[in-house]
C-alpha cells in the first residue's frame, strides 16, 4: 500500500490555455441572430433567455467550485482531510444544497408554464405541418372562414395569439425561437400553443422534429407587425389575387394554367383551386420561397420550378425542366406579381 508519490507527467496539450481562448471566442461570436433563443422578441422567449443567463451563471460557479475542489485535493494538496468534513460535504453538497436550489428553480418553472400556455385572444392561427412546408390559416375573432396562406406566419405585436397545430403525414414541430418555445405537430391530435411578440421585426422559424428526408429544409418566415399594419396586411391577404399586370406575367399565367399547376395550388380569384400544395394567392408578398430556404426572387422561382428535387430532396412537386427559359421566366414574373 505504500507506493511512491508520483507527480503527474507534463500535459502534452495545455488545456488551461486552450479552453479560455475558446470561451472568449464564443462570447465574442455573439448571441444575436434571426433564429436565436438569446435574441428574444417575445414575452416567453425573454423570460426564458433571462432564466438561461441566471442558470448559466450559477452553473459556471458550481462547476468551478466542484472541479476546483477536485483538482485541489488530487493534485495540489493531497494530504488527507478530516472524514467528518468529507461527510458533511456529502450531506450538504449532495442533499441539502441541491434540494433547496432545485425546489426554487422548479417552482419558477412550474409557475411559468401556465403563463406561457395561456389562451390567446383575438387571433387564432392554425398551422399544419406538411412535407416539407407549412399550411397557415388565420382566423381572427368572429371570422367564419379562415384566410389561407403558407410558409410564413405573421403576428401582431403586444398581444397573445392562439396557435393551433396539426400535421398531415408525419410529426413536425413548430418553433420560432425569437418568440418562444416549440410545440410538436402530431398527426391525429391537435396541439396548441400561444405566442406573445413584444417587438416588430422579421424572424426565422424552423421545423424541430425530424420529419424525413428534407427535414433540414423546412423553415418558415415569421413577421411580427404593429397591430394596424397587421390588420391591413390580413385584409389584403384575405382578398383574391391581383390580376397580372405586365405582358410577361400574363403569359406566365397562361403557362401556369397550361401546365396544370392549379391542380395542386390555389390562386384565389382564378380557376386554380388545388389544395395539395401551398396556396399561392399572395406568394409574391412573402419574405421567402420554398418554406424559408430561398429568397423571393424571380431567379429563385425559376430554379425551384425547374427542379425542386435538386433544392429539396424528396419534395412532392414534380420538376418542370421541359419548360423553356422563356416560359419559366414568364411563370416567375406571374408568381412574383402575386403580392
Amino acid at each position, binding site marked *: 500500500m505504500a*507506493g511512491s508519490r*508520483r*507527480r503527474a*507527467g507534463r*500535459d502534452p*496539450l495545455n488545456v488551461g490555455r*486552450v479552453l479560455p481562448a*475558446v*470561451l472568449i*471566442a*464564443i462570447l465574442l*461570436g*455573439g*448571441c*444575436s*441572430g434571426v*433564429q*436565436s433563443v438569446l435574441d428574444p422578441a417575445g414575452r416567453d422567449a425573454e423570460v*426564458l433567455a433571462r*432564466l*438561461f443567463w441566471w442558470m448559466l451563471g450559477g*452553473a459556471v460557479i458550481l*462547476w468551478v467550485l466542484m472541479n476546483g*475542489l*477536485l*483538482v485541489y*485535493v*488530487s493534485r495540489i494538496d493531497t494530504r*488527507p482531510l*478530516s472524514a467528518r*468534513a*468529507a461527510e458533511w460535504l*456529502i450531506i450538504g*453538497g*449532495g442533499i441539502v444544497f441541491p434540494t433547496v436550489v*432545485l425546489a426554487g*428553480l422548479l417552482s419558477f*418553472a*412550474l409557475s411559468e*408554464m*401556465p403563463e406561457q400556455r395561456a389562451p390567446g385572444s383575438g387571433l387564432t392561427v392554425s398551422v399544419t405541418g406538411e412535407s416539407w412546408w407549412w399550411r397557415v390559416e388565420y382566423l381572427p375573432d368572429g371570422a367564419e372562414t379562415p384566410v389561407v396562406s403558407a410558409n410564413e406566419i405573421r403576428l401582431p405585436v403586444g398581444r397573445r395569439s392562439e396557435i393551433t*397545430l396539426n400535421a398531415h403525414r*408525419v*410529426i413536425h*414541430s413548430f418553433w420560432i425561437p425569437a418568440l*418562444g418555445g416549440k*410545440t410538436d405537430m*402530431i398527426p*391525429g*391530435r391537435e*396541439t396548441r*400553443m400561444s405566442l406573445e411578440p413584444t417587438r416588430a421585426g422579421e424572424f426565422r422559424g424552423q421545423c*424541430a*422534429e*425530424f420529419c*424525413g*428526408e428534407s*427535414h*433540414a429544409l423546412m423553415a418558415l418566415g415569421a413577421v411580427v407587425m404593429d397591430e394596424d399594419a397587421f390588420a391591413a396586411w390580413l385584409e389584403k391577404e384575405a382578398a383574391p389575387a391581383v390580376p397580372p399586370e405586365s405582358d410577361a406575367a400574363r403569359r406566365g399565367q397562361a403557362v401556369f394554367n397550361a401546365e396544370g399547376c392549379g391542380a395542386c395550388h390555389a390562386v384565389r380569384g382564378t380557376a386554380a383551386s388545388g389544395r395539395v400544395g401551398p396556396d399561392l394567392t399572395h406568394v409574391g408578398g412573402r419574405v421567402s420561397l420554398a418554406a424559408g430556404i430561398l429568397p423571393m426572387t424571380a431567379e429563385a422561382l425559376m430554379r425551384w420550378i425547374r427542379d425542386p428535387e435538386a433544392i429539396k*430532396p424528396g419534395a412532392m412537386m414534380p420538376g418542370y425542366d421541359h419548360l423553356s427559359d422563356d416560359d419559366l421566366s414568364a411563370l416567375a414574373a406571374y408568381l412574383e406579381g402575386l403580392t
Partner: protein
Amino acid sequence: MTDITQSMSRRVLENADDARPEGIYPPTEEMLDEPVDPELRKAQEERLRAVWAEPPGWRYWSAVNNSEVGAWYSLTAFAFMLAAGLLALLMRVQLAVPENDFLSADTFNQFFTMHGSAMMFLFAVPMFEAISILLLPAFLGARDMPFPRLSAYGYWSFLIGGIFVLSSVLFGIAPDSGWFMYPPLATESEGPGSDIWLLGLSFIEVASIAAAVELIVGVIKCRPPGMRINLMPLYAWYVLVVGGMILFAFPPLIAGDFLFEMQRSFDWPFFDPERGGDPLLWQHLFWIFGHPEVYIIFLPSIAIAAMVIPTAARRPIMGYNWIVLSAVGTGFLSFGLWVHHMFTTGLPSLSLGFFSAASEAVVIPTGVQIFAFVATLMVGRVRMIQPMLWIAGAVAIFTAGGLTGIMIALAPFDWQVHDTYFIVAHLHYTLFGGMIFPIIGGVYYFYPFFAKKKMSDRLGRWSFWLTFTGFNLCFLPMHLTGLKGMPRRVFTYPGDIGWDWLNMVSTIGAFVVASGILVFAYDLLRPKSRQPLTERNPWGGGTLEWAHDIPDPGWGSRSVPYITSRYPLWDQPKLLERMDAGRFYIPDAPEGLRETIVTSAVDAVPQHVARITGPAWCTIWAAVFTGGAFIFPTFHMYPPAIVCGILAIACVIYWLWTSTALVPEKPMKDAGLGLRLPTYVSGPRAPGWWGVFITMLGDATAFASLIFGVFFYWTARPDFPPENAVHADPAFAGLAAAAFAASWAATRIARGVNRSGNVLTARLLLGAAPLLGIAGATALVLAVWWPGLEPATHVYPAMMWALVVWTCAHVGAGVIMQGYCLAGSIFGKLTPRYDADLWNTTLFWHFLVVTCLITAAMIGILPRML
C-alpha cells in the same frame, strides 16, 4: 484486526434434509491456519487446470468461460463503437460548412440514425454487460458466471445482430428515421430500414436481457462465503441496480417493437391515427425504455470510478452507504423521467410538471454519488495514476452535462432548446463524462487484470489530453449553436444565420477526439508480447479481482475465500496466501467438473456447489438460428424464419437437456474447511430458479406495457373502443381462463406429488397440463376470431388480437416446459429428489397464469365496462 469469529454464533449445520449444507460454518482461524499438503496442492492445481482449460485450436471459439466471452464481447462492442464514431466523423464533415454536398440528405439521415442506434444498442449497453461478465466473477471471487453458456449465447447473438444492423449502412438500406424511430415516419418508411432496426435490435435486446438476468443472479447468488450485502464491492451494487433497470426498461421497448412490427408486417394500425391509433404510444414506450437507458449506461461507468477511486486515494470509499442509496435511488427515479423527452408533445402542463419535478429530483442521488467520490479523494492521499486522470476528466465533463441537465429538466426552458444542438451538447457531455471517460479509465485500470500487461502511461496521457481537448472543442460550442436556433438532425444549414463558424470549430474538435480515441485504440491493441508481465495487484487495490494469479491459470480463484471486509486484500492478512494454497472453499475438482459456490442472497451463507456448463457449440447454433428467426422476417421471408425459430428452440432444448440440472453422481460433496454442500438444489436456493424469476419479472413488465397501451388508447382516443364495436366472446374467454387455470394447477400439483414420490400421478398431471394449455390457447383465439374482430380495421380489435397473440406465444413456451418436465420424468432426468426443472416450470406458470387471466379479463370483460 480483531477476531470476528468471537462475535459470531458459530453453528454446526445439521443435516435436516439431504439438500442442506452440513458441517462447520463460518471457518475458525485455526482451520484457516492449517497448512495444505504441497503434494495435494499440486494435484489439485493439476485437476483444476485441466477442468478450466480453454479448448485448443479452432475449438477455442466454443469457449463459454467468462474471461473469453467477456473479452470477445468488449472488443466487439468497441469495434462497433469505432464504426459508429466513423459515421459521426462523416456527418461532421458534411456539417463543417453550410450547404455542403459531401453527403446526400438520405445518406446523412441513415448515418445519424445508425450513429445513435449503434452507440446505444451496440456499444453502451453491451459494453456494460461485457465488462461485467469479464470482471464480476473476479470481484466476487467466483470461478465464473452462473450460466456461462447463456453468456456465450448472448455474445453470439449480439455479434450476429450487430453485424446485420450495422452492415445495412454499406448497402444504403439502413434505417433512416432516427434512433427513436417515431411513427408515422418510421412505420411509413419505405424499404427494409425500419424492419432492420426493429428486428435486428429486438434480437440484441433479448440478448441484453439474458445478460442482465445472469448478472443479477451472479451478484445475489455467487458471492463468496461471508460477503454479506454490506460488504459487496460497489461495482456489484451497481450491477444489481442496473440489471434490475434493464429488466424493467427493455421490456416496454420490446412490447413497442412487437406492436410496431405488427403494423409494418400485417397493417395492424397501432400508430395510425386514421384508424384509431396514436403515434404517441410509441413515444411513451420508447422513452420508458429510453430514459432509464441513459442511467443504465451511466451507472456502470460510475461503478468503475467507484473501484478506481479508493485505489487512487489509498483508502476505503467514503460514504459507501450513501453511494448505495444513490445507485438505488437513481435506479428508481430514472423511471419517472421519460416524458422529459416529450415535453413539446402538448401533454397537459400538470403531467409535464411531474416529469419535470422527477427530472430535477434525480439530480440529488446523482450529486451524492459525485460528492462521495470527491469526499473520498479529500480524505485519502491521492496518487494521480493514469486511470484516475480519466476519472477526473470524467467528473469535469459529467458535471457540466449534469448542470445543463438541470436547465433542460425545466419544461419551459426545454420548449426552447428541445431538439436543438444544445441537447446534442448536453447528451454528449453526459455520455462522454458518464461513460466514455470512465470506461477508458477502467480499461487502463483493469488492463493488467485481464491482459497481465500494462498499457503505456505516455500514450495514455496523449490520448487523454487529445480526447479531452477535442471533446470540449467539439461540443462546448454546440451549446451556443443550439441556442442560436440550429435544430438537430439537419443534413445542411444556411450560411447566413451565424452557425457556420461554430460548426467548423465542432468539426475540427471531432477530429481531435477521433485522434485521441485512435491513440487509445492503438495502445489497447498493439502487440505487447515483448513487454514483461506486470506484478500481481499493480495498483495496490483492495478488492478480490487483484487476487488473480499472474500468469492466469484460467481458474479465476484458486479457492473461493471466506470474506470479512469490503477490501479483503487490505484488511484480511494472509488472504492471498491462503487462497493460493487452496485453503478456502472448493480448491479441487476431483469429479472433473467446473464448479462455483452458491451462497444465500443477503448474508452469503454457502448453500450449494453449482456445476456450471463448459464449452459448447450448441450455443452458437442456437444464436445463429435465433438470428435467422429475427433476420429473415426483415425481408418478408417467413418460411425460413419459422424453420430457424424451430431449430433455435431445438438447440436450446438440447443445450438444457444435456447440461443443466443433471442428476449428480452424489448428493453432497466436501467443499473444504469442513463444510459439505449439496451438489443439486431446487427451488429458491438454485440459481436457475432465480434466473426464471428475474426473467419473468421482465416479461411481466412487457405485458404490463401492453396493458398500459390499452389504457393509453382509452384516455387518448374518444373512439376506443369505437361505438358498435365487435367485442370478444366472453364465453370463450371464460373457457380459456378456466383451461389455463387448470393447466397451472396441474403443474403445481405435479410438483407436490412428484416430491412425495408419487411419480405416476405426477406424470399423468404433466401429460394433462399441456393439453389444457393448448385448449386454453385455442379458446382464447376463438374468443376474438369467432365474433369476427378484424385487426386491420381499427386499433381496438388490433389491441385485443395483440394481447391474444402475446399470451398464446407464452403458453407455447409454457407447454414446451411442461413437456420437457414430463420427458425428464420418463427418462430419469427428473426424480422426486432432483426436480429443479419442475420447480422452474411451476414458477414460469405462476407468472403465466396471471398473464392469461388478465388477458381473458381484458378481452372478455373490460371493454364492455369502458
